[in-house]
C-alpha cells in the first residue's frame, strides 16, 4: 500500500513538472541569453525534495528533462538542461542538507545555479570566455525567479504535507 501510494504521488509530481515545462516552453520568457529560463519546473523539484527526499526528486528531475525534451525540445536542449539541472540539484540538496536555508533559499540557490551551470556549459561549447559577460544578469534573474518559486513552494508544502503524511518528518521548509 505504502509503495503504491509513493509511486502514484511521485508520478503526480512528475506530471505537474511536465505541465510546468510545457507552460515554460509556451511563455515567451527569453531575452536571448543562453541559460536564462523561468525555471517553473523547478517548483516540482523543490516540492519533491521536501515532500519525498532527494532520490525521488532526482528521479522526477531526470524523467522530466528527458520527457519534456522529447516533447517540446531537441536533443541538444536535453543535454543542456541536464547539465544545468544536475548542477542546480546538487547545490539544492547540499543547501537543504545544511539546514541553513528555508525552502525559499534552497529554491534561490537552485535557480542561480541552474543559470550559472548552463552558462558555464555554454562557455565550454563555444570555447569563449567572453560570454561570461551575461553572468551578473543571469545571477539576478535566477535569484528572482528562484525566490518566487520558493515562496510558492513554502506556501504549498504545508498543505501537501497533509497528503504525504509521514510521521517523524519535521517542518524544515520555513
Amino acid at each position: 500500500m505504502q509503495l503504491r501510494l509513493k509511486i502514484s504521488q511521485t508520478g503526480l509530481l512528475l506530471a505537474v513538472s511536465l505541465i510546468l515545462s510545457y507552460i515554460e516552453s509556451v511563455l515567451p520568457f527569453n531575452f536571448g541569453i543562453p541559460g536564462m529560463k523561468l525555471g517553473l519546473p523547478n517548483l516540482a523539484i523543490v516540492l519533491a525534495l521536501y515532500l519525498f527526499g532527494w532520490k525521488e526528486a532526482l528521479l522526477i528531475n531526470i524523467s522530466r528533462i528527458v520527457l519534456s525534451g522529447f516533447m517540446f525540445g531537441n536533443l541538444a536542449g536535453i543535454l543542456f538542461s541536464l547539465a544545468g539541472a544536475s548542477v542546480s540539484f546538487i547545490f539544492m540538496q547540499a543547501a537543504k542538507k545544511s539546514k541553513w536555508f528555508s525552502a525559499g533559499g534552497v529554491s534561490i540557490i537552485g535557480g542561480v545555479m541552474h543559470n550559472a551551470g548552463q552558462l558555464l556549459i555554454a562557455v565550454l561549447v563555444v570555447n569563449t570566455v567572453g560570454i561570461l559577460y551575461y553572468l551578473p544578469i543571469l545571477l539576478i534573474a535566477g535569484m528572482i525567479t528562484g525566490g518566487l518559486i520558493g515562496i510558492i513552494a513554502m506556501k504549498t508544502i504545508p498543505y501537501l504535507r497533509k497528503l504525504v503524511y509521514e510521521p517523524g518528518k519535521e517542518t524544515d521548509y520555513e
Partner: protein
Amino acid sequence: MKNRNEKKNDGKSETFCGRRRADLVLIIIITVSAFFLMLLLQRGTKGERAVVLIDGKETESFDLAQDRTFTISTENGGKNVLVISNGTCYMKESNCPDHICVKEGVISRKGQSIICLPHHLVIQITGGRDNEIDATVR
C-alpha cells in the same frame, strides 16, 4: 512538533530569525556579487569591431562603422546571416534549431555577444585597439 507549530502562529517576531535570516544573507550576497561582477565585466563603452569566433577561434572581424550583411558558414553546416548597421549588429537569420541567436537582438557595447550554441558560434563586440579579444580559451 506541536510546540513549533504554535510558535509559528504567534506573529511576525519570528519572520527574520533563523532560516529566513540565512535566506536574506544569501540574497544580499548574490546581489552584491552580481553587482561587482557587473562592474568588473560590463563597462558600457561603445564597441568598434564585431569579431566572429567559431569554436573559440577568430575567423573574421568587421568594423562596426561600415554597414554590411555577411553570411557565416560553420563546419557543422550552420548558416548565420549577420547584419551590421549604424554601429550595431544583429543576427538576421540562422538555420539552427532554437534561433536564440536571432532573438538576442541588437548589440553594440563592448563585451556584448551573440551566441549560437548549436553552431559553436559567438559574435563578440570588442573595443578598438587596446584589447582585440578579451580572452579566448583553448
